[in-house]
């Protein structure tokens, strides 16, 4: 037997993995560490060995200075952080609304398949289109919202031009694909709910909300978990809708960490400062990553 034939089983898995690992290391894993490294520097993005017009180097180690500035001397940072919290809390509303809609359409009647897919498909529409549609919807002069308010005799509300409302306006737009997604999850989850347990519950006199809470929801746990994880990760990633609808405005009031990072790095040429914001965002996300991995490996072990 040749060397290859003898050792194939040991070598093949590494050859199969090599391209995926290599490209993943270069474009995902290495950049994480590089960003953290950049966050300890002041850098305008230019040649690292060059100097600026004022004689200072383009690239200079500053320790924790970027982080200290963020926490002690940047009000916009707190606005962004607080907006991220609002995104986290309010976007979770998509989970119960999706569940309610899923329960509502979970019937066997003629044409229900088509009705369901019409409920689902906003999920595949990209954020730019959603953003454009809702910007127009909120437009105080031409928008449908003003039209509806006018019908009830109310004045137009300039959703996206109002500092205290802009973020909520964008979150509402994010519900459109968000609810479609949680609804898809729950409808699929409902097909897996055990009939026997429902029947047993009925015999015991459970119905309506009691049945939902004690018998159906526990069986929907996997769907709920995925819905929550994906919604939270989506809330922390919120960027596209903000960029399209308000560009962070008015006066930075609808910025979130992701958007502020982009602004600082690419428009203010403060790469180090931007990297520090990204690192904080990454640390927040790490909580979810750790929790998700913990759960996954607990399942992995219990399967063995």
């Amino acid at each position: 037997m040749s060397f290859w034939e003898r050792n194939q089983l040991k070598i093949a898995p590494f050859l199969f993995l090599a391209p995926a690992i290599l490209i993943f290391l270069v474009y995902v894993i290495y950049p994480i560490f590089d960003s953290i490294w950049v966050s300890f520097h002041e850098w305008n993005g230019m040649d690292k060995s060059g100097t600026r017009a004022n004689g200072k180097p383009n690239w200079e180690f500053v320790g924790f200075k970027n982080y200290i500035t963020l926490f002690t001397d940047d009000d916009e940072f707190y606005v962004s952080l607080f907006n991220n919290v609002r995104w986290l809390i309010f976007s979770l509303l998509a989970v119960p609304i999706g569940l309610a809609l899923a329960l509502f359409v979970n019937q066997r009647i003629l044409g229900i398949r088509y009705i369901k897919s019409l409920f689902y498909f906003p999920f595949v529409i990209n954020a730019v289109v959603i953003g454009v549609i809702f910007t127009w919807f909120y437009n105080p002069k031409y928008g449908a919202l003003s039209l509806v308010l006018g019908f009830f005799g109310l004045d137009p509300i300039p959703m996206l031009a109002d500092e205290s409302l802009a973020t909520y306006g964008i979150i509402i737009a994010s519900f459109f694909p968000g609810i479609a997604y949680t609804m898809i999850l729950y409808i699929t989850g409902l097909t897996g709910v055990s009939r026997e347990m429902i029947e047993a519950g009925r015999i015991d006199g459970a119905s309506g909300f009691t049945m939902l809470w004690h018998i159906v929801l526990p069986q929907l746990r996997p769907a709920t978990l995925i819905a929550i994880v994906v919604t939270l990760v989506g809330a922390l990633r919120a960027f596209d809708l903000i960029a399209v609808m308000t560009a962070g405005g008015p006066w930075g009031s609808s910025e979130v960490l992701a958007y502020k990072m982009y602004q600082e790095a690419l428009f203010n040429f403060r790469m180090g400062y931007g990297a520090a914001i990204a690192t904080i965002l990454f640390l927040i996300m790490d909580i979810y990553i750790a929790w998700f991995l913990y759960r996954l490996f607990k399942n992995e072990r219990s399967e063995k």
Partner: protein
Amino acid sequence: MFPTPIQNYSLKINIGYRVLLVFTLIIWLLPLLAVMLTSIRTFDDVLAGNYWTFPEETALVSNYTAVFADGKMAGFFLNSLIITIPTVIGTLFLSSLAGYSLAMHKFKLNLLVFAMFIAGNFVPYQILMIPVRNISIELGMYNSHLGLIIFHIAFQTGFCTFFLRNFIKELPFELIEAARADGATEWMIYRKIIIPLTIPALAALGVLEFTFIWNDYFWALILTQGDTVKPITVGLDVLRGQWTTAWNLVSAGSVVAALPPVIMFFILQRQFIHGLTFGAVKG
């Protein structure tokens, strides 16, 4: 079944339910209906503030040709295709190889590698932004289709490997053992056993990935400059600035940008939902 089948109730409730269902659906789709109606309105009709009435004079052809008039929109659309299709194929190839390896081979760092792919998948884009942009510039791939394709393949490989590893792990291991006993090479097993059995998962991932990549906005913003490489998401944002209050054109452009994933969704709905809800039933 939960809730109680509607057939168990009176005729009145049955009719009421159906009416409510259609009503809810119309409310749900109202924003999209408005966009579709507006995309066939004339500019005068838009200025008159008409929203819900069916336009007396339709401008379907003239609006949609106007959208494509200066050639930019067609370019953006083509760019989206040039970026999306190779990305989907490349991602499925790399991640099916990796998924087979992680699912069916025992080696020391197996779980660690698997965890790396999963964790990388949740990372916020911003922590990758500066280095990925610099790598692309250094490799001469900034503002090229290839730069976007390679990055998308790298990032999406995390999610797809996770998905395919779990799918392949459910396949009967005896099949592979038998093939090995017959002297099949690992590559032959991958080609002749794993791939054919994984087709449903690959189809599900394929439609999902097509949608994700087509809808990407952030990376196109970071890794492109000017109009030559931009996909339709960023392109629409650019054109919107030119059209300003010509909502009929903005709407027609939006419909064009949204259409390919929507068509794909309606044709391959079963695969799509299978991919999306993987792990939502059993867990």
